[in-house]
């Protein structure tokens, strides 16, 4: 026996009304998200776009009003100056206007230092990343999975070192580096950057390791692993997202670091990219487009690193933050 279902006309109309309202709300929500995303993207990307665009413009075009977002006469003169700079092409006050007769833009003599400085930055950043992992991973594993006296105290101590602002550490760091005879060398930067980054690395990894069940560690050890083997065979493969987060964080921190590099480096032997770029801006005769070309080169390696690891970034940062 089937019961007859009676639906009044009024309730049918109501149902249609509710459905329309729901769809409208959905559409409004999507539009709000879309428009916000577009505005945010423009806000973030416009300076980068201007940097790239102006780096291939002449000095005359760069100062035109209104600005040309798309260069009318693109030129690679700035990049040529950087990549083809040689020792013999000494640019002096007298001959500098001859460099770019069209614009009168000035290419500084330090242009040839740009690539070596990039090399320095890269070496320092890679060394800091590798050493961070070598120190941070075992430290975090020990803190997260081994019960020992003063375990919490050691976590707090490590974190406390990061409460002190870098500027307060500059003088003591300088004395240490000077007494070690490492002034104006790359190791001086690597050592001090480690002091800055290792606490964060340990903190992120401890959070992540603590989220992984203790029983995995026990199972691995009963299966025949030593502590170190349990770390390598079980924990590291599982913590890939947080490791990627650590790699990105430490690489970008060292790549961008300015204050300590300014203190410890004096010559092109150890100068990193931020120091050289900053020096350009203090010379008002240097062409804007050249500075922007150097800026483009400075963001290329971090962008490549970010693109390579992009799919891990989000899960890595949140996985450490929200404990399972």
């Amino acid at each position, binding site marked *: 026996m089937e019961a007859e279902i009676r639906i009044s006309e009024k309730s049918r109309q109501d149902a249609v009304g509710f459905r329309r309202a729901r769809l409208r709300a959905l559409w409004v929500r999507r539009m709000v998200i879309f428009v916000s995303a577009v505005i945010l993207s423009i806000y973030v990307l416009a300076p980068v776009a201007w940097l790239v665009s102006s780096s291939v413009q002449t000095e005359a075009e760069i100062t035109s009003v209104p600005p040309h977002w798309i260069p009318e006469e693109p030129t690679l003169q700035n990049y040529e100056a950087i990549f083809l700079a040689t020792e013999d092409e000494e640019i002096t006050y007298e001959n500098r206007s001859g460099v770019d007769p069209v614009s009168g833009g000035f290419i500084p003599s330090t242009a040839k230092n740009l690539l070596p400085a990039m090399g320095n930055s890269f070496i320092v950043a890679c060394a800091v990343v590798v050493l961070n992992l070598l120190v941070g991973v075992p430290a975090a594993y020990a803190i997260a999975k081994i019960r020992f006296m003063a375990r919490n105290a050691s976590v707090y101590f490590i974190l406390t070192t990061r409460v002190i602002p870098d500027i307060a550490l500059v003088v003591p760091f300088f004395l240490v580096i000077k007494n070690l005879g490492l002034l104006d060398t790359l190791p001086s930067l690597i050592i001090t950057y480690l002091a800055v980054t290792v606490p964060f690395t340990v903190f992120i990894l401890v959070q992540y390791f603590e989220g992984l069940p203790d029983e*995995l560690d026990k*199972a*691995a*050890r*009963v*299966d025949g692993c030593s502590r170190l083997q349990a770390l390598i*065979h079980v924990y590291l493969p599982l913590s890939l997202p947080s490791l990627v987060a650590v790699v990105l964080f430490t690489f970008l921190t060292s790549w961008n670091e300015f204050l300590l590099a300014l203190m410890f480096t004096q010559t092109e032997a150890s100068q990193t990219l931020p120091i050289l770029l900053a020096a350009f801006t203090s010379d008002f005769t240097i062409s804007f487009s050249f500075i922007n070309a150097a800026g483009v080169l400075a963001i290329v390696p971090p962008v490549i690193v970010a693109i390579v690891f992009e799919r891990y970034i989000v899960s890595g940062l949140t996985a450490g933050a929200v404990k399972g």
Partner: protein
Amino acid sequence: MARILFNKVNKRYANGFHAVKDLTLEIRDKEFMVLLGPSGCGKSTTLNMIAGLEELSDGELLFDDRIVNDAPPHERDVAMVFQSYALYPHKSVYENIAFGLRMRRMAKSEIDTRVRDAAERLEITHLLDSRPGNLSGGQRQRVALGRAMVREPSVFLMDEPLSNLDAALRISMRAEIKELHRSMQTTFVFVTHDQAEALTLADRIVVMRDGVVQQIGTPDEIYERPQNTFVASFLGSPPINYLDGRIEMTAGGGLFRRGDLSLRLPQHVAERLEGQGGRSVRLGIRAEDVDERREGGRDDVLSARVISVLPIGSDQYLGVRFDKQELFFRVGKDLRHKPGETVDLTVDLSRLHVFDPETTRSLIWGDSASQ
């Protein structure tokens, strides 16, 4: 194949918690030993000490005649199954099972044979290429068993391996674990807080509480002859009922008296309590040790008012009120009682338990059943 011996072992954690107190216990070779107790009783700590995952604070732990106090887990030839299964999420089922063998540098062909044999036995061959994340709870449990099995360890440890399974699966896995023990011919140590699991699986049971062993014995001994009220209460469903009262010695034997209630003590109990007339005792009546259909004789009837009737399919639980106390019994399901009625329950006197209300120790089984 190993005998495990705890000699006056203590475990104190860094925070001061005394998890295991003066544990002296022999687990015989090829025995199926179950450690039973509520959470926090020290049973898992004891298991972890056997595995080498926890250090002993003092005392000695021997495998056969070898002191293994400080031997790391991989030197002990033990395998372990965890409550959460603890499968490696990034490895396939095959690799999970093979991992322990690889760590021991076994030949590839031998690994393959063992993994496939185990998989076949556990009926998980079709899952060998899957990741643990894609398996059901029961399948994961099988993989965890397989991982321990292939090692062919001399001691097989299980930490509440069935707790995360649903009820039906739990029963069938019990049977499989029992069969596994029979065929592997090795020492099993199994931790659980589930009395039914303990009773069905064990050769012997250790009941623990607050880090102290309460009783060691076969399932029958533990159930039939509990040495104290804790052991008596921990096993049995619904739990044993207690009635405080007094002993009265008469010419015809001993009587338990409380108000109107008078129960005749069986011969072996009366003998034990000879000359202790008048002392107060705590009487224990197991839920199933009453019969409503049997005609009551002299001094063996408990009259009480029914307050609840809880059918459980095969039987029913009968909640009654006697002298301001609530008691639960298990009776046949054909009985039709309604709350408020008075019921006469005939007590099986031969199965009475008598405890000292002060020390909670059994006055009947005290010495005879201790190890």
